[in-house]
């Protein structure tokens, strides 16, 4: 009887959540299961490409004076190896795993913004492919993966390579930001009923921290790329010393991103370890609260360390002392995590399954990488080994030991859940015993070569310097390691297609993702689970059956649409019903036009780029239009007697939450711009400029009046629900236009941005203001169209516009103030 209920529920939900049939289904699907699988496959493909590049490097360095590659080819190969591994493999791979697993862990049916996830996937595929295709055409960047100008400026890298890097990588960062917004909102709002913050699975905490880090660390890098690309294309001299620029500005912006990036890569792996290790020890994680606190403090500390990549650039001594101390300090939260895991093993009974083997590989490797990291934080030592192979070996210990090994553990651990099959062929153990010893032989040799003075990024070396044996050993072992990695991939593929059909929850794990049938269906859960503790599967072994029978929330499929539960952020009490969009071709189309607008400048087709940009606006408008129905429906039955409002009819709909976190990234981007302005002002030679911008009074009045109107207009709109919307719309529109006019006055008064970095920065500050005013205008236009079409205006929509208008007004006043004040006081 109850089995039949479960089956009927399964059939109804499977129909509602089904992708379109055939190959078109892959282009229009936005379900996290499909998107996650594609993401994972593509990221693995890039890992293989990066690995082949690594083998080319080791082949070249195996013998002194090798004629295998010349410096032109070698410089492209090592630049692309770093770029592919960092940007095209490491970040997308953990994003893919999070997309696949997070909804299950949280007890929800999908991520908060499914179409945004699909969009992020396609932008990543297009941007990444463009970078690889450019490499195959011999147009790869060759200035090293951190792209220091002036070497990468137009004067010293005239080819397309640097542009490929800047535009391709920036589009991938856009994809990462889209995913991060989606993950943050999902973790904060889309959970099982009763899952308060302190009951969240530990991985959700880690990935929440990581996503906030992405939103705050990527914007400086995006700004840096924007500055460098503008300098290359339009000759605005941000990094040219003779015209008021400074190449050190790039290093600050790059490492403001680059150091947190290391922890953005490590923390998801740590989250996986904290998830898997307790299950492998048949116990629970020791010190959940300690581990959460350690993850948060590691994230905060990681933003205070970027200067340790710049110890040799002539930083003042006090600065060196501060950043040296801060750099050693990150070892503290890291050791809290390490000892939490060892303590967990201590209190449990370990079983030596394949995931556990890889975790042991992690311990042995990562601890060594951490210790060489502490050595590098000591300034006098750093001055000797900086830019030698010692640093190369250190970062491979941290990244392969701290990221790749735990990720392999994660894939083997979750394979039964993702494929419904359990391991049968034992190739994985062979692969492990090839990879880990070969890894240590390779990079121990590289450490020593670095201590003996071998510089990184040199394409060959002479005989008689004592490096021959070390390099040959490293190269041979690295090929063994590569064979091992190939076996890892083969093992997973074989067991995916030919493993044993397994039962549910083979490891006896206590968290919700294992409550779904295996392989996890597109809809995830038959009904939204109700949880009463941190380990719901341990508390209630019958939970899977009760979820499947529809005893949780939202088991009624009568409304015939994709629904999931939104809960109160703190307590996890059911609060709203989210209606998720179905299959759609819009994400794919939007990704096509976005990528075109990014990549068209590579071939000089600026007109195409502009055309594609207008395509972005149009598709985005259709996207939002389809999301919100014309009429409101009031509270709906969420099951178990709960009557809950639909999310789009609340004051803070999901779009408001998404906007809030997108604006966090936008705000950091703006902050980086102001930092750059102040940096050039105080540090760059050839400042101050020969003359300052002196503003007249009317632009100042326009800016002030515009800001007030921008703040007031949308608020009028939000209050006037059900009454005429025209006054609010009109006030806000006038405000946006006035602010844009004030910004234009800056550009008109200083018409030569290519003359001095001061003028170029003024143009960016004014451009930022005008751009955000234009965004608000587009949103206001959208609301007007909705009114004209006779749709009901919702308070949530007005509040979203209000958020963006406030941001435009606040940053506009700061930007224009920064442009005007020096002239007013000069």
């Amino acid at each position, binding site marked *: 009887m109850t089995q039949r209920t479960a089956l009927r529920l399964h059939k109804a939900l499977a129909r509602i959540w089904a992708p379109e049939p055939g190959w078109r289904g892959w282009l229009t699907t936005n379900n996290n299961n499909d998107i996650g699988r594609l993401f994972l496959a593509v990221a693995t493909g890039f890992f293989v490409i990066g690995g082949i590049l690594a083998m080319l490097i080791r082949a070249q360095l195996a013998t002194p004076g090798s004629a295998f590659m010349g*410096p032109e080819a070698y*410089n492209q190969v090592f630049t692309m190896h770093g770029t592919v591994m960092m940007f095209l493999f490491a970040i997308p791979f953990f994003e893919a795993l999070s997309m696949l697993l997070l909804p299950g862990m949280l007890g929800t049916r999908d991520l908060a913004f499914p179409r945004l996830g699909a969009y992020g996937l396609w932008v990543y595929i297009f941007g990444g492919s463009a970078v690889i295709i450019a490499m195959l055409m011999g147009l790869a960047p*060759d*200035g*090293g993966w951190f792209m*220091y100008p*002036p*070497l990468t400026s137009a*004067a010293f890298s005239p080819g397309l390579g640097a542009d490929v890097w800047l535009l391709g990588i920036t589009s991938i960062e856009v994809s990462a930001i889209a995913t991060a917004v989606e993950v943050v909102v999902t973790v904060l709002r889309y959970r099982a009923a009763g899952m308060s913050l302190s009951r969240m699975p530990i991985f959700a905490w880690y990935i929440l921290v990581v996503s906030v880090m992405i939103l705050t660390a990527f914007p400086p890098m995006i700004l840096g790329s924007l500055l460098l690309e503008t300098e290359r294309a339009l000759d605005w001299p941000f990094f040219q*010393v003779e015209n008021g620029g400074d*190449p*050190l500005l790039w290093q600050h912006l790059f490492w403001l991103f680059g150091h947190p990036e290391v922890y953005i890569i490590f923390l998801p792996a740590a989250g996986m370890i904290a998830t898997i290790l307790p299950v492998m*020890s*048949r*116990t629970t994680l020791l*010190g959940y609260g*300690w581990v959460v606190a*350690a993850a948060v403090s590691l994230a905060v500390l990681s933003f205070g360390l970027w200067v340790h990549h710049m110890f*040799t*650039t*002539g930083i003042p*001594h006090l600065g060196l*002392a501060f950043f*040296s*101390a801060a750099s*050693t300090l990150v*070892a*503290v939260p890291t*050791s*809290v995590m*390490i*000892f*939490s895991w*060892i*303590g967990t*093993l*201590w*209190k*449990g*009974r370990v079983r030596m399954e394949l995931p556990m083997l890889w975790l*042991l590989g992690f*311990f042995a490797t990562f*601890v060594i990488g951490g*210790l060489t990291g*502490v050595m590098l934080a*000591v*300034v*006098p*030592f750093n*001055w*000797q080994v*900086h*830019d*030698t192979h010692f640093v190369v070996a250190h970062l491979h210990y941290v990244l392969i030991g701290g990221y790749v090994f735990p990720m392999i553990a994660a894939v083997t651990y979750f394979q039964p859940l993702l494929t419904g099959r359990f391991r049968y062929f034992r190739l994985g153990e062979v692969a492990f015993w090839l990879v880990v010893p070969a890894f240590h032989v390779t990079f121990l040799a590289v450490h020593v070569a670095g201590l003996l*003075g071998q510089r*990184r990024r*040199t*394409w*060959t070396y002479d005989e008689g310097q004592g490096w021959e044996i070390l390099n040959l050993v490293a190269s041979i072992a690295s090929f063994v390691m590569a064979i091992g990695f190939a076996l890892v991939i083969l093992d997973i593929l074989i067991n995916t297609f030919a493993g044993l059909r397994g039962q549910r929850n083979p490891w006896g794990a206590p968290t919700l993702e294992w409550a779904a049938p295996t392989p996890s269906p597109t809809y995830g859960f038959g009904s939204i689970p109700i949880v009463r503790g941190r380990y719901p599967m341990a508390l209630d072994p019958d939970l899977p059956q009760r979820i499947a029978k529809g005893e949780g929330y939202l088991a009624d499929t009568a409304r015939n649409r994709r629904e999931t539960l939104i809960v109160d952020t703190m307590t996890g009490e059911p609060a709203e019903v989210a209606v998720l969009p179905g299959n759609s071709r819009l994400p794919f189309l939007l990704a096509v036009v976005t990528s075109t607008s990014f990549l068209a400048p590579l071939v000089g087709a600026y007109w195409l780029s502009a055309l594609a940009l207008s395509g972005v606006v149009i598709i985005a408008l259709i996207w939002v239009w389809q999301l919100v129905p014309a009429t409101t429906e009031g509270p709906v039955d969420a099951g178990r007697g709960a009557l809950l409002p639909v999310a789009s009819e609340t004051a803070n709909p999901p779009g408001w939450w998404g906007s809030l976190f997108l604006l966090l990234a936008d705000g950091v981007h703006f902050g980086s711009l102001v930092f750059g302005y102040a940096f050039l002002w105080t540090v*760059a030679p050839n400042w101050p400029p020969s003359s300052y911008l002196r503003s007249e009074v009317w632009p100042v009045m326009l800016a002030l009046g515009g800001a007030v109107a921008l703040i007031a207009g949308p608020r009028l709109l939000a209050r006037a629900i059900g009454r005429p919307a025209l006054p609010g719309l009109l006030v806000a529109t006038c405000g946006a236009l006035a602010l844009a006019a004030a910004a234009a006055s800056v550009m008109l008064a200083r018409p030569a941005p290519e003359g001095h970095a001061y003028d170029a920065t003024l143009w960016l500050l004014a451009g930022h203001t005008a751009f955000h005013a234009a965004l608000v205008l587009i949103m206001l236009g959208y609301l007007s169209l909705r009114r004209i079409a006779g749709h009901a205006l919702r308070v949530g929509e007005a509040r979203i516009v209000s958020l963006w208008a406030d941001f435009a007004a606040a940053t506009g006043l700061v930007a224009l103030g920064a442009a005007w004040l020096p002239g007013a006081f000069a």
Partner: protein
Amino acid sequence: MLAGSAAILLLVLGLLSAALLRRPAIPEAETGGRVWFWGFGLGFPLVTLAALTLYGLVIGERLLPRDAPDLATVEAEARQWAWTFTYPDAPGLATDGVLHIPAGRPVDVRITSRDVIHSFWVPRLAGKLDAIPGHVNILRIEAPAAGTFAGQSAEFSGEGYLGHVFTVQAHDPAAWARFLAGGTP
């Protein structure tokens, strides 16, 4: 540092092995948190790191350029892919690829670049310091006795990076005086 790191590594791996070998019949509840977190997690790294950082700062302090009565100053300008050295004590004197310094005296090298970023590194005399266009970085070196020392750029600078090397020639007082006077040292 190496010995300390090895000791820490052995400690961690030892604890790990002990944890693996230990097989309690029933997995224990949350106990021992105080030792694991206050002791190993916080106390242990804080103490070792404080000592190490202090040690690094003291060493760093000794490497700082200080006023010295017999200080000599030379200038190094890098470009793709060569070095030119000039000598404020002998205006007009310039050498390519060979830096001449007096032995047994502290020498300040004023480092800059004409094009992209390079780095001045003579491993046996000092750590490296970057040559950045528009900036002058000062590195203090001292050669213990007359002789030749190999130097190289240590910041990737494009196709000619491998060959971007120079030598440092340290002279006894008489030879240094002859060099500054324009003669062969």
